[in-house]
C-alpha cells in the first residue's frame, strides 16, 4: 500500500477546546452530568465522538507528531468475540466502558486493563444479525446505556453492570435492530432502529434516563397527513426505510439533535416513487418533544443504497464573509455538504463531490437539491453502473474535526463503483426477511472499479482526505491501494490523526497537517473500531478496538472478486481485542 500526499498546507485556527468542569468525585465513580456532556474534560471520552458536536477530537497533546514514533502498547484485552468491533472505548475518570458484538459491555480499569465487570446480553436464539456490531455506550449520571441487537435499550449500573431497566423500542422479528450508541441529552436516552434492508419504517425513540419510560417516539417517515407525507405513494411509507443507525449530534443551545437517516426501502427507486422524506436526510429534532423542526434531504428517491445516517458535525465556519453556525457532512453520496443550523430550519450553503460521483448531474445552488443522470439510476428492470459504490464515498466510519488545524478529515473510498439492477418484479415483503428488490446474487458480484483507473496497476481505493474548514478546499489526501478502508478517525491536539481500516491490519498515526504517516503497528485483526483518547494520572492514552467484520468483511469479499490474482487481499482474521497505547517511558 502506498501513500500519496498531494498537497501539504495548513490553515490553523485557534484552539477552542473546552476543558470544562472537574468531575464530581475522583475516588469513586464520577457521575456524568449534563454540564460534563456539554463541556467534556480533556482527560475523558464521555461519548462516542467525544463531544456533542461529533468532532472525534481530543485536546490532549502529550502525544505529538514529533514523539508519536515512541507510541507503544500499554495493555490489551481479548474480548473473546468475533465480528465487527466498532465501538470506541469510552472513559470516565479512569474507568473504561467498551461495547462489543453480541451486546457485551466490558468495564475496565483504563490504566491497567483489569476487568471490573462484564455484561452479556442474552440475545434471542432466533435473532438474525445482518450487522453484528455495536457502536458504543452512552453515559449519564451513574449509569451506562446500551442499544441492543434485539431493538431494546438497557440501563446498567456503572459500578456493577447490573441492569436497572430495559425498554424495547422495536421488534427484531420484523427486522428492527439497534447498533448505534445512544445519544444522551437533557436526561433522555435517544436511540433508533436499523432495518432498511427489511422494509422497516425508521424511528427515533427517547427514553427517560432514570425510568426507561418512553418520552417520545418520532418516525422518520411521515404518516399520511403529516408534513412530508405527500412525498410518498399510497402505502409505501409503511415500509419506506429511513432507518436510524448512527448516533445523532446535539446542539445544547437550541436543544436540537441532528440525526442522519437511512436509504429508502426497498432499494429500487421505482418501487416507491416520490422524494421519500425523510430518507437519506438530516433531521433536526427537538429533544424535549421529539418534534421534527427542520430537515435537509441530501438526495431524493435514493437508488443507490446511500444511507445518510452519519450525523453532520456541528462546526461553525466562515463563508462569504459571514460566520455560519454550521453542519458539515461527508455524504455517502460522495458530496461534502455544508449546511447551516438554526433554531429550526436547516439551510443549504454548498456541496461539492469529494470522490468520483457520476449519479448527480448538478446541485441546485439555492436548495441543494440534486438532479440525476438517468443512466446512472438502477431500476427494477434496469441495471446501472454508478459511482461511488453502494458503500458510498464514506459509509458509517466517522469523520473528525480538529479545531487546531482547522481541518475536517474524511475516511473515504475512491475509485470504487457498483453495478446492479432490480429483479424485474418486487416480491411481497415477508416480515423479518431481506427485502432488497435486487437479487442477492447480483449484489454478490456488484462491485466495480471506476472506468477512470488503470486496473492493471494497484488502485488507490482508500483515501484519508483533509479539508480546510475555512475554504472548503482539500488540503491533503493519503491514499491506500487495493484495500477496503473502514477507518473511523480520531484527531488530537498533538497534531495527529489516528486511523485503521485497511486489510493489512495496521493502525496508524498521521500528521494532521500533512497526512504523512508517522507511526503504524500491526494488530491482531483489522481495525474498524472508533479510536478515542484519554488520560489518567498525567499519561495520555490512545485506545481502539481491533476486530474485523460486517461491511469491511463484505467489501473484502467483493473486492477479492475484482482484483487480479497477483493482487488478492490478505486474509483478515476475526477476533476482537481492546488496545491501549502510550508513549514509551
Amino acid at each position: 500500500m502506498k501513500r500519496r500526499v498531494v498537497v501539504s498546507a495548513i490553515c490553523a485556527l485557534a484552539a477552542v477546546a473546552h476543558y470544562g468542569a472537574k468531575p464530581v468525585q475522583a475516588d469513586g465513580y464520577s457521575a456524568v452530568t449534563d454540564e460534563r456532556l456539554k463541556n467534556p474534560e480533556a482527560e475523558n471520552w464521555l461519548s462516542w465522538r467525544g463531544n456533542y458536536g461529533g468532532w472525534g477530537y481530543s485536546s490532549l497533546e502529550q502525544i505529538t507528531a514529533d514523539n508519536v514514533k515512541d507510541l507503544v502498547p500499554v495493555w490489551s484485552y481479548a474480548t473473546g468475540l468475533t465480528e465487527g468491533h466498532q465501538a470506541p472505548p469510552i472513559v470516565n475518570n479512569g474507568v473504561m466502558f467498551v461495547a462489543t458484538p453480541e451486546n457485551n459491555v466490558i468495564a475496565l480499569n483504563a490504566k491497567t486493563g483489569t476487568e471490573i465487570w462484564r455484561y452479556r446480553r442474552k440475545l434471542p436464539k432466533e435473532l438474525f444479525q445482518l450487522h453484528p456490531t455495536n457502536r458504543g455506550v452512552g453515559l449519564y449520571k451513574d449509569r451506562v446505556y446500551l442499544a441492543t441487537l434485539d431493538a431494546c435499550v438497557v440501563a446498567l449500573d456503572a459500578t456493577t453492570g447490573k441492569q436497572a431497566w430495559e425498554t424495547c423500542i422495536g421488534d427484531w422479528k420484523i427486522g428492527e435492530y439497534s447498533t448505534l450508541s445512544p445519544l444522551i441529552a437533557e436526561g433522555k436516552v435517544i436511540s433508533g432502529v436499523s432495518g432498511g434492508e427489511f422494509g422497516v419504517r425508521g424511528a427515533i425513540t427517547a427514553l427517560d434516563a432514570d425510568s426507561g419510560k418512553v418520552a417520545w417516539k418520532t418516525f422518520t417517515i411521515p404518516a399520511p397527513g403529516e408534513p412530508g407525507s405527500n412525498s410518498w405513494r399510497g402505502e409505501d411509507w409503511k415500509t419506506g426505510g429511513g432507518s436510524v443507525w448512527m448516533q445523532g449530534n446535539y446542539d445544547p443551545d437550541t436543544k436540537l439533535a441532528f440525526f442522519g437517516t437511512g436509504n429508502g426501502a426497498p432499494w429500487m427507486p421505482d418501487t416507491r416513487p416520490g422524494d421519500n422524506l425523510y430518507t437519506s436526510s438530516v433531521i433536526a429534532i427537538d429533544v424535549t418533544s421529539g418534534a421534527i423542526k427542520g430537515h435537509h434531504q441530501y438526495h431524493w428517491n435514493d437508488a443507490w443504497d446511500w444511507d445518510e445516517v452519519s450525523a453532520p458535525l456541528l462546526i461553525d465556519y466562515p463563508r462569504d464573509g459571514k460566520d455560519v453556525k454550521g453542519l458539515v457532512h461527508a455524504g455517502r453520496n460522495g458530496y461534502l455538504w455544508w449546511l447551516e443550523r438554526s433554531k429550526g430550519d436547516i439551510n443549504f450553503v454548498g456541496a461539492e463531490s469529494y470522490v468520483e460521483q457520476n449519479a448527480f448531474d448538478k446541485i441546485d445552488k439555492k436548495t441543494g437539491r440534486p438532479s440525476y443522470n438517468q443512466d446512472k439510476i438502477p431500476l427494477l428492470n434496469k441495471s446501472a453502473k454508478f459511482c461511488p459504490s453502494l458503500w458510498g464515498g464514506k459509509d458509517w466510519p466517522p469523520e473528525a474535526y480538529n479545531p487546531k488545524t482547522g481541518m475536517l478529515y474524511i475516511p473515504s473510498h475512491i475509485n470504487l463503483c457498483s453495478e446492479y439492477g432490480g429483479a424485474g418484479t418486487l416480491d411481497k415483503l415477508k416480515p423479518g426477511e431481506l427485502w432488497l428488490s435486487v437479487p442477492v446474487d447480483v449484489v454478490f458480484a456488484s462491485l466495480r472499479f471506476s472506468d477512470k483507473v488503470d486496473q492493471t496497476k494497484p488502485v488507490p481505493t482508500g483515501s484519508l482526505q483533509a479539508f480546510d474548514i475555512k475554504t472548503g478546499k482539500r488540503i491533503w489526501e493519503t491514499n491506500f491501494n487495493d484495500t477496503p478502508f473502514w477507518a473511523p478517525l480520531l484527531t488530537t491536539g498533538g497534531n495527529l490523526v489516528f486511523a485503521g481500516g485497511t486489510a493489512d491490519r495496521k493502525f496508524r498515526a498521521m500528521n494532521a497537517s500533512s497526512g504523512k504517516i508517522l507511526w503504524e503497528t500491526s494488530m491482531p485483526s483489522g481495525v474498524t473500531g472508533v479510536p478515542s483518547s484519554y488520560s489518567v494520572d498525567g499519561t495520555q492514552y490512545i485506545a481502539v478496538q481491533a476486530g474485523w467484520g460486517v461491511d469491511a468483511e463484505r467489501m473484502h469479499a467483493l473486492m477479492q472478486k475484482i482484483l487480479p490474482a497477483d493482487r488478492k487481499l490478505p486474509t483478515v482474521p476475526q477476533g476482537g481485542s481492546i488496545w491501549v497505547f502510550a508513549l514509551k517511558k
Partner: protein
Amino acid sequence: MSSTKPFSGADPASRNTEVSLNRRSLLSKLTAAGGAAALCCGQSFTAAAETSADAEPSGASLKAGDHFTRVGDGAGLSAIRLSDLPAGAAIMDVMPLDPATGKAREESRMNAVNLVRISNVPSGSPLEATQGVMAYSAICTHKGCKVNSWAPEQNRWRCFCHMSEFDVLANGEVVDGPATQPLPTIPIAIDAEGIITATAGFSSAPGAAD
C-alpha cells in the same frame, strides 16, 4: 440517585477473577443441560448482571418423515417433489410439512431448509439414491441469517449477510467467509410418489454456532 459510588472491584487486588471464570464455565455447562433455572442460580456468583430476553421457541422441530413445502406464497401447501427440482436447481427457504396434519412446521425459523439437486451425480455415489437431491438448513451458522443464494457453478450455498459460503458436496463445510461451522444437513429419500422426504432430523442444531 447517588452522584458517587464506590466501584465494586475497582481495585484490581479485590477482584476474584477465578470466581468469574468458574462461573462462566459453570454457566456453559448448565446451559448445555438446558435449564433456565440453572441460569437463574448462576447469577448469585457475581455482581455482573445478565438478563434474559423473552423465552424463545425451542428451535427446530423437523422430524423424520416430514415432507417440505413452500409457505407464504398464497398457494395451498403441497409437498415438494423430485419433479419440482430440475438438475442444477435449488428451492430455497422451504419448511418441513407434517404429512399427518398437512401443516407446515413454521413455528420456528430454525426449521427453514434449502433443497438442491446437483447435476452430474457421480456413478456409485450415495446421491444416486436421491437422484442428486440434498437438503440443508437454511440458517447460516455464522449469525443466523437465511442462506439465500445458490451458486450452481461451484455447488455452493452463499449467505448474503456476511458472504459465508458452504460446499454442498462436502457436507456443508465452510469454504469462504466468516462462518466456522458447516451447515446442518437433513438425510432425505424420495418416496414412491416422488415426494422429497426427511429420513431423520437435522444433523446438528440449526442456527448461529459462533
